[in-house]
């Protein structure tokens, strides 16, 4: 049987035509332009979609992460959140005047320079300054380089403005101000006033203008027999010694500028 079976299968041959057609098909296969392997298309598309999604998420996160905050206080209290691309991504007002000012200006997604210029040039702020108002601009820095850059810019912008104070602060201090519902510029004066009296509440401080707060502080300091180094401007670094470390920090600064530890 073995022999018969072997003979039976030995009679089955692949024809020359079959071989030739197979060679032709293979030749066509070898000659064709190499397409992207179909089996890889699905995973490649999925991977590309994942990459795009991740890029989108990372980009979104990068764009909407606050890296600095510019706190502007005069009577309106306004804080502008700046992202790493120097764009304003948030505008927060801390009193009704600030809200009115924020509503009157379109600051979102503008560069911080443009936004600061618009705020300083607004009727509300110019009117306050004309009425002997005190302007405080605090830069809360998360990214030190950007914070320094913004501080330089606002200092330059207010160089010719009397009663303007620009300084930088650390984020931790700004967080304490926000816990009390105050913008940083207002908080800096509030905690100094609190050293002399406990009758002022954060809500009351929020309703007073910066000039009123500053005058109140001066009055309290005079009553307490404190000596002011400058009758026109308050040097915050001198006065912050008694603030249990929660006031504006010490540092050097020019007439308008107060640094935070250099």
């Amino acid at each position: 049987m073995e022999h018969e079976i072997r003979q039976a299968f030995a009679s089955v041959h692949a024809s020359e035509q079959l071989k030739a057609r197979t060679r032709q098909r293979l030749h066509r296969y070898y000659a064709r332009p190499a397409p992207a392997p179909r089996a890889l298309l699905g995973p490649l598309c999925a991977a590309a979609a994942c990459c795009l999604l991740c890029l989108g998420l990372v980009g979104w996160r990068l764009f909407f992460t606050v890296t600095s905050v510019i706190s502007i206080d005069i009577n309106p209290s306004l804080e502008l959140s700046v992202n790493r691309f120097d764009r304003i991504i948030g505008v927060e007002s801390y009193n009704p005047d600030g809200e009115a000012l924020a509503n009157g200006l379109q600051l979102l997604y503008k560069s911080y320079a443009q936004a600061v210029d618009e705020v300083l040039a607004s009727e509300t702020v110019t009117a306050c300054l004309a009425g002997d108002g005190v302007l405080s601009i605090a830069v809360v820095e998360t990214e030190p380089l950007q914070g320094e850059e913004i501080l330089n810019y606002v200092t330059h912008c207010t160089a010719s403005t009397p009663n303007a104070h620009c300084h930088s602060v650390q984020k931790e201090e700004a967080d304490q101000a926000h816990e009390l519902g105050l913008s940083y510029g207002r908080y800096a004066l509030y905690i100094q006033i609190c050293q002399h009296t406990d009758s002022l509440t954060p809500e009351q401080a929020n309703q007073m203008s910066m000039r009123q707060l500053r005058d109140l502080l001066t009055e309290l300091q005079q009553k307490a027999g404190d000596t002011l180094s400058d009758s026109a401007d308050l040097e915050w670094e001198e006065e912050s010694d008694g603030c249990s470390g929660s006031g504006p920090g010490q540092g050097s600064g020019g007439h308008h500028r107060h640094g935070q530890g250099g």
Partner: protein
Amino acid sequence: MRSEAEVSQAIDTYADMVKQICILHLKNDADTEDIFQTVFLKYALRSAAFESAEHEKAWLIRVTLNACKDLLRSFFRSHTLPLEAAAELAAPETPFGNPVLEAVLRLPEKYRRVIYLHYYMGYSAPQIAQILGKNPNTVYTHLTRGREMLKEILGGDGDGT
């Protein structure tokens, strides 16, 4: 990927074997040609080297068997009937003109394979078990049962092994 010359050489060497395995399963020329070409295309696409000629041969047997099984399992195949097969049904004949071959082809698929691999290709039961991924004892059983059935079909004229 293998060169065209390499594949051409393999066609010369293994064409008959691939055709015979196709015949064992498919029984019609159109499917046979399709599988024949598919097997050598897979051979062309395989980039890994073979350890030996025996390894290459066993790989081709396995690929051809799997390609045939895949075709038989496919939805289209299981729900339609080629014209050739319809003609066969209408007038059954012995297209190969060899009664022994016809008898082998009448065996169930599992017996056909082992009979071919053992009696024609000369593989032992353990080798067949390795190629088919089955237990050697199963292969022995299939061989014995296939041989008995073949004897029955051919009129008990076998000499055994």
